[in-house]
């Protein structure tokens, strides 16, 4: 099944692993959970030798253990879970993994936008059917959240703060009374949530103040703040993990040399330091230089070497992709990159040699082409 999808949801992608975990899970499971909380944690954070399992479970989300524990525990309690953090910190990925592990369904998602209405959260009507047969359960279109309630599984709400306040407040009754009434119907007009229903919402902390949550909604959610990854080791693992996944998705058989990964991480760290010390916006790159951006650069370089190169990832290609991805404004971004290349990369290539020399050359050419 995964072969037919561009990107399989976590429960499909890790179906085999989840099946196996379910088969060995003897811990107490809350409500209708498919796995016990400990197994959910194991699924998300991967196994250790000390866990004494017969097979290794890969780590899928990189970050502090206590965040995952707090998130799982919240879902087992009465409250909804709100993951809050900067863009690119892996909030949605964690939400997807949790939903997949707990209820084997991570696709019941409402995307919060300025155009989201209450109908998207509760239900809407199939107009032609209503005209033909009148209002009934049959002609009703339940929202993903309502479906989650009926099935007793986890529903997801992405970018909660992007939707307007009145729409957000529709969640209040769902989270406290745990039912949705359908006043249009005369009978069978209440949908009760089954045990196991909960909501994982994500919110971007940069957007705070756009549509602030009401206090009533805030107290129905437990907030778990996901910080930005600053640890180089964790970042390397995230980049490697995501890139391997991408390679598999594109069916590309290409090796990722560790030295090149180091160069990529190092150059991003340098550029971030430069951006932090810049005096004005002109002095820093437009890009946020997030971990997701690094993955983008690497993916670009891999695709380039696969289709136009000799199927080996080279430092020159990586440098070209980096310049290409980060130079968004001319001449400001190009000037910064030019300064970086001559001020940092050049001395380093003389000192350390190795792949840095290729990186220097590739970057120079890319900058020259774009200038």
């Amino acid at each position, binding site marked *: 099944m995964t072969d037919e999808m561009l990107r399989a949801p976590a429960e499909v992608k890790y179906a085999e692993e989840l099946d196996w975990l379910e088969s060995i899970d003897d811990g107490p499971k809350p409500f209708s959970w498919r796995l016990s909380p400990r197994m959910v944690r194991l699924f998300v954070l991967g196994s250790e030798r000390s866990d004494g399992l017969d097979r290794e479970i890969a780590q899928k989300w990189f970050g502090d253990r*206590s965040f995952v524990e*707090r998130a799982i525990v919240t879902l*087992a309690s009465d409250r909804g879970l709100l993951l809050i953090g900067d863009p690119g910190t892996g909030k949605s990925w964690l939400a997807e993994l949790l939903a997949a592990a707990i209820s084997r369904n991570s696709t019941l998602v409402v995307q919060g936008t300025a155009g989201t209405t209450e109908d998207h959260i509760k239900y809407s009507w199939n107009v032609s059917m209503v005209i033909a047969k009148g209002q009934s359960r049959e002609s009703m279109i339940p929202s993903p959240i309502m479906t989650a309630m009926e099935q007793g599984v986890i529903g997801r709400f992405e970018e909660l703060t992007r939707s307007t306040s009145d729409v957000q407040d529709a969640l209040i009754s769902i989270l406290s009374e745990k039912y949705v009434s359908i006043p249009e119907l005369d009978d069978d007009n209440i949908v009760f949530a089954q045990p196991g229903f909960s909501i994982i919402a994500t919110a971007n*902390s940069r957007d*705070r103040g756009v549509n602030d949550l009401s206090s009533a909604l805030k107290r129905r959610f437990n907030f778990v703040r996901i910080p930005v990854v600053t640890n180089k080791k964790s970042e390397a693992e995230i980049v490697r993990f995501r890139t391997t996944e991408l390679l598999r998705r594109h069916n590309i058989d290409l090796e990722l040399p560790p030295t090149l990964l180091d160069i990529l991480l190092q150059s991003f760290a340098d550029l971030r330091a430069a951006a932090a010390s810049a005096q004005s916006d002109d002095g820093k790159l437009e890009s946020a230089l997030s971990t997701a951006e690094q993955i983008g650069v690497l993916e670009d370089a891999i695709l380039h070497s696969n289709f136009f190169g000799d199927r080996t990832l080279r430092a020159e290609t990586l440098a070209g992709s980096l310049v290409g991805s980060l130079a968004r404004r001319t001449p400001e971004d190009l000037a910064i990159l030019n300064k970086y290349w001559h001020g940092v990369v050049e001395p380093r290539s003389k000192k350390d040699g190795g792949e840095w020399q290729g990186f220097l050359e590739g970057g120079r050419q890319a900058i020259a082409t774009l200038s």
Partner: protein
Amino acid sequence: MSLFGALREQLNDAAETFAGSPGALSEILTGMVDDVDRALGERLEIFPVCHHSPASALAMARRLREKQPQVIYLELCEDLRPLLDELRTCKLPVALQAFATDLDGFPESWGPLSVVAPITEASAEYQAIAYALDTPGVELVLVDRSSDHVFQWHPREEPGRPAEEAGLHGDAVGVEIGDLRPRFAELEEHLLHHGKVRHWSEWWDQYVEQPLSGADYDTYRQVMVLIGSLFRRLRPHDSAKLDRDEDRERYMWTRMREHLAATGADPERCLYVCGAFHAASRVEEFGLDATRTDFDISPRTATNWLYGLIPSSHSAIEAQFGLAPGSVSIAAATYAKATTRGGVKPYALKGQPSSKRPAKAKPAAPLVPADQLTGFLSRPPERDPLDEAELLGWCVDIVRLARRNGYLSSTADAIAVYETSILLAGIRGRARPTPYDFQDAAVTCIEKDTVPGRRDVRRLCEILLGGDRIGEVGYQSLPPLAQDVFERLEPLGFDMKKRAVHRVLLDLNATPELRPCSQLLWVLRRLMPDDHAVRPIMGSKQLGERSIQESWDVALGHHQRALIELGYEGVTVEQVLEQRLRRSVWEPKATAADALQAVEEAILFLGGRRVADELGARAVDLLAAERSVDDAPDVLRRIRRLLAHYRASEPALPEWCERFVTTGYAQYCTLLPTAFVAEDVGVRQVAAMLGFLSSMESLALSLGCDRAQLELAVRQSHPETPGKIALLWAAQFQLGVLAIADLRERCAELLDNPLVVPSFPQYLSGFVQALEAAPALTPFVVEVISGAFAKLPDRVLLPWLPTLIETLRKEAPELVPILIREAGRTFPATLAAVDAWVAPWERAPGDGPGVRAAPAAVTGGPAAELLAAHPAPSDAVAALLGCEGGWAPLGSGDAAPGAAPEVAALLARHPSAADALAGVLCAAGKG
């Protein structure tokens, strides 16, 4: 087969299974058992401890009651021993401190050296100290290296003091009993990762503290030594820290052997309390029956060490020793709970709160170690059952506390926190929620996207679980200086020892008896300027000023440490200040300005002439030796202020002041020509020199200086920059060499010459600065500025205006009011007057009140008659000034021709005042 034979075999098998062959791993595992065996088999009973471990404290209390040892050897700097008796008067936590400023044998850059050893109530060492000090016949011997050796063994290339933020401890080097932590980061990371905990304190609590809390003594000892041995064996082999650790072990065993030999004490009745790391020592000197006993203890350096107690706090300890925030508080709370639950009666020093007499118990039988370790390692630790009431209490309290701190939390949150704590403990494999689980649960349920108040939920949890406790040093243990300060502040009516900010209001007119208190507060402020121990809200202390009312914020209780450290320097604050002032003027880099400042401070804070005169004499020497004039403005300002003070308050100037003026006159005359041309000397400096020379001239001349020296110096000066040229002209005007008309002409030439116009503003700056030396030039400077505004082209004037304002504000703030006053006199005050106004300098000579003919000689009147009747003094003055000419004959006594007609009219209208004056003068003349 030894005691642990079975365990050793079992571990060997385990090593084989995991590592594939019994190699290194087996060596480590069985080596650990050997260490345990060795430590427990030692004749002198070793009590391994870990810092801030309630389990250690409880085990210690239990063991002391059982064994009743006669001698206790404690791993603590041996020179701190006398301080321990003082603990009785203190509220814990406090820190023992050794402090040294006079270094001998250490690099100067290391000073001041400071070592602190914090003592908390929930610690094994406090149990041992309390037992030993309160039980008659028990001797407490500190055996670790002295504070001096701490620095002797410090690597020389490193800076002397680690830069740790430690709040109450300042930047002291911390020493602690029972430092037990993995010696390299990877091991700690590994343990934390596999223990599924966040920080070291949590790991320790979960894997050692909890299981050991109810363990018997054998188990406790074996487990502690085992962990000590583990960290000892898994460590970088080349670490310098380890060498020092081993040296410390040799030191301690040597000291113990010496003590035993000297006193003949029975090792069976002794107890050696040391960190678990040292209990697993493998140095050759280990044990009473060691093979090597020849460790050479190096003598202390000649550094003069001072000792005292300073207040400490849980957060200061956490910061200094890199523990997780709140961990010491949580340990204290755990300890308190364990002691109230019963089972063990802890020792406490008499005189301290909750002090209880130790129960009499019979000496315990010698300990026969039994293998408890195998059981501990092979079965999961037994955990306490859920303490439901405690957790419920926490949940309710945290919600209450959060509400008070601005969170919108309610009972629903209390329920959620309770549920989440239990769920979290479940997922983390704990039978009951630890304080750490509770903290996480509270953060999850109560913390939202913003923190409404000053404290977040994590901090509130720390407060709830015991909070930061801050110690207090008892009055009796304070140094004499601190006691003296508290006694002298008593009239203010506050208990300054309390930890509060006292607002002190002093009405010095109504209650002059409080003046000494005010003086003391000023001295304290001068000595502790950075701390907020004493802070003036209203009132000031400057020469020539006297406060009528003052208001102070005094928080000496909060800042005990600063006051105590002041106590290391002297017996009274005045003595300390005197020493500091002396030190400041004798420093190699001291300047005359510094010395004058010291004189000012001596007058202000110490009173009396002795110190001020001594410092003043030094100022003269410093001035004579100075080759730079950078400080000239400062010197001028200060000496003027001092002269004004002495003239107002003393019958005669002090001798040093006179010498200072004459030395300064000669010195500045000598340096003037160089200063005028030197590029690195600014206009302000030269102006200040000229100011000194002209304003001190009369005094200097009366003391024997020669004016020709100044004239020559001015003649030798050939400045090249516009600002200094203007200064030179002003100096020449002041000396009478240059007439005002010539000066005016020169300025007009400058303004007419288009090549010079751009630099004209700099001339102006020079003239403004020259007001310091030639105040008579003020009207002229106003004239020049007005002329410049009128004539300078906009392209020169406009860019220059901001520069002028900035220069005036920065370099001549005191001269601006003079200029403005003069301008106010010159320019019309009303709009109507503007039309008719003609600038004084543009009027024809003789057509205004400002321009007058030279006053004619007085030819009559009572004054003239008086002088004519007694010509001798006038003749003598004339001869002295070299003024030739004789006496003019007295006229009819009419008003002199040319005298102002208004004055004559005024006198004619009101003759009585003039008549009375004439009567007085005549009477005086006749008398």
